[in-house]
């Protein structure tokens, strides 16, 4: 059965995948407890470390860094006006459209403040994503304990407050989990739609095509890849995945004459230039401070991703490697953990590996919580470490 699921063949819903009220409540409890813990810790950190910080109130605590850009897109739409930030002049074309479009739509529907509806939306997405993570773990035949541990681990990862903030991490995690879960179950249309929305949430979402491509090859071999008319349904996620990005490109082209306005904005405003991965990683490791930490975190995540191979999750492994390689090829890598917390298959297999080993499990949880605390302090101090 597991082999069939790993090969992505259609699987009927088994009892283990069905979500009972008790399980849903357990996931909700983990969600609420982790969010409360993070918010209270952040509040305390702000009170002690930076009492005059603008991070006041729940909304203030959850609206930091790129939040202001999403608010600007949701509020006034994309604009070519540049805003000077540090050494660069930046525009909001750098930010993908799905989150701000939904914020604007929900704000219009509920006549609410777009910040509050945005926060409600990202948190709802995160909760739904946790449900998908649980179901995904169960789909892989991992037991209930491993599935719940995966959920808890994702909730406690350093910088996991980003899932509840007004940032794209929450929706991205949900859509990625949906796309992978439904692809593995053989619901190719749902997977394709989720993948299309994924590439409209963040540009690196388009890398889902790597997952879909490996899945097509594993299911039908290279002969199947070269004869797509035999099982065209398997190609739906592959063809649908870039659609969200193409829609954004078309919009950018219509408005600015530059379909790649996002890339232009990144290059001009965020000093983001592409280099070979090995050159970039070597450069990051040479520099003290944040770039070095970011490189170490990326390489550690890459090391963890090899556990995916042990579980036979080649599609997930290819997707995670492609994501890490893409991000590490950019010269503007600033976040230490935020890019990697959405790579949930890695955290699921890490949970599976740790689950039967109490001592490493406790050590891992304590380390994670301590690191998460360090990042919250950095956020309270507005240190770039928390980017």
């Amino acid at each position, binding site marked *: 059965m597991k082999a069939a699921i790993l090969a992505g063949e259609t699987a009927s819903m088994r009892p283990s995948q069905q979500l009972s009220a008790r399980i849903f409540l357990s996931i909700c409890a983990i969600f609420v407890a982790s969010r409360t813990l993070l918010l209270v810790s952040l509040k305390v950190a702000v009170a002690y470390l930076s009492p005059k910080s603008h991070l006041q109130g729940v909304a203030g605590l959850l609206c930091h860094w790129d939040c202001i850009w999403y608010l600007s897109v949701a509020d006034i739409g994309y604009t070519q006006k540049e805003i000077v930030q540090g050494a660069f002049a930046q525009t909001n074309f750098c930010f993908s459209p799905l989150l701000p479009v939904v914020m604007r739509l929900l704000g219009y529907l509920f006549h609410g403040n777009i910040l509050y509806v945005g926060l409600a939306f990202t948190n709802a997405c995160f909760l739904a994503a946790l449900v998908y993570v649980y179901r995904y773990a169960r789909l892989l035949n991992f037991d209930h304990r491993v599935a719940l541990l995966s959920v808890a681990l994702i909730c406690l990862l350093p910088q996991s407050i980003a899932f509840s903030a007004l940032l794209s991490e929450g929706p991205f995690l949900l859509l990625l989990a949906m796309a992978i879960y439904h692809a593995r179950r053989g619901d190719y249309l749902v997977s394709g739609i989720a993948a299309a929305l994924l590439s409209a949430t963040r540009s690196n979402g388009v890398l889902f095509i790597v997952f879909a491509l490996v899945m097509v090859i594993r299911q039908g071999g290279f002969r199947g890849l070269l004869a797509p008319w035999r099982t*065209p349904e398997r190609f739906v996620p592959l*063809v649908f995945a870039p659609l969200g990005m193409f829609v954004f490109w078309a919009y950018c082209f219509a408005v600015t*004459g*530059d379909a790649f306005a996002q890339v232009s904005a990144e290059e*001009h405003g965020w000093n983001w230039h592409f280099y070979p991965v090995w050159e970039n990683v070597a450069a990051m490791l*040479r520099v003290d401070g944040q770039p070095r930490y970011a490189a170490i975190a990326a390489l550690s995540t890459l090391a963890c991703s090899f556990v995916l191979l042990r579980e036979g999750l080649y599609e997930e492994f290819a997707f995670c490697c492609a994501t890490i390689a893409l991000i590490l090829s950019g010269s503007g890598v600033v976040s230490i953990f935020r890019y990697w917390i959405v790579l949930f298959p890695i955290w699921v297999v890490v949970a599976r590996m740790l689950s039967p080993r109490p001592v490493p499990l406790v050590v891992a949880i304590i380390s994670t919580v301590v690191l998460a605390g360090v990042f919250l302090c950095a956020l309270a101090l507005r240190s770039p470490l928390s980017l």
Partner: protein
Amino acid sequence: MTSTASIRWALFACLLILGCGQVAAYVFFRTQSVDFIARNHDATAEEYSHFHRLTLPARLRFGSGKSDMQYLGDGWHLPESDGVWSSGRDASVELDLQGPMTGVVLRLGVSLYGSPKSPNNRLRLSVNGKTVAWLPIAGQESGIDVPIPHDLINRGTLHLQLHVDHCESPLRERTGSDPRRLGVMLEWIDILRLDGNGATDAVSSLEKAK
């Protein structure tokens, strides 16, 4: 043909059309797109230079707080106290000159980014799309004269393109802590009239004018 087979073929046809459409759209976007930020910077500088025509001889100074910064088109970082660095291999300056043209001399106060990787970095200067000089500059130098013949000056409009062979971040090359990519540092430009004998106005006249 069974209905299942028909559906499969229909789905395949739809996916094929969608896939080909994406490839075609990508090719179209790739060939038709122009960097909108670069275009906006150039257009803004062009407009400014059109409304602020220069009377020769003229000296433009670049750096923070200097009004001549607005003659700069695309490809520049934010200004520093003593000049402005280009952010890529290409950067532009838009000038509009007043009066009858017999040709001009551009005197450039520039220095190039240099590192052990690129000890012989070069600057190529183009005016209105035509290369007028390849300047091998090592380190800090100033006062490089580049004569611009009359036929290159289009009704007083000068679109200067500064291109460097090598542009990199000192942080990446371990020559400094600046994470920005640096190409050429522009401090000032003198624009002098080229007289009938190919000589320029005296620099002193420029100083007096200032």
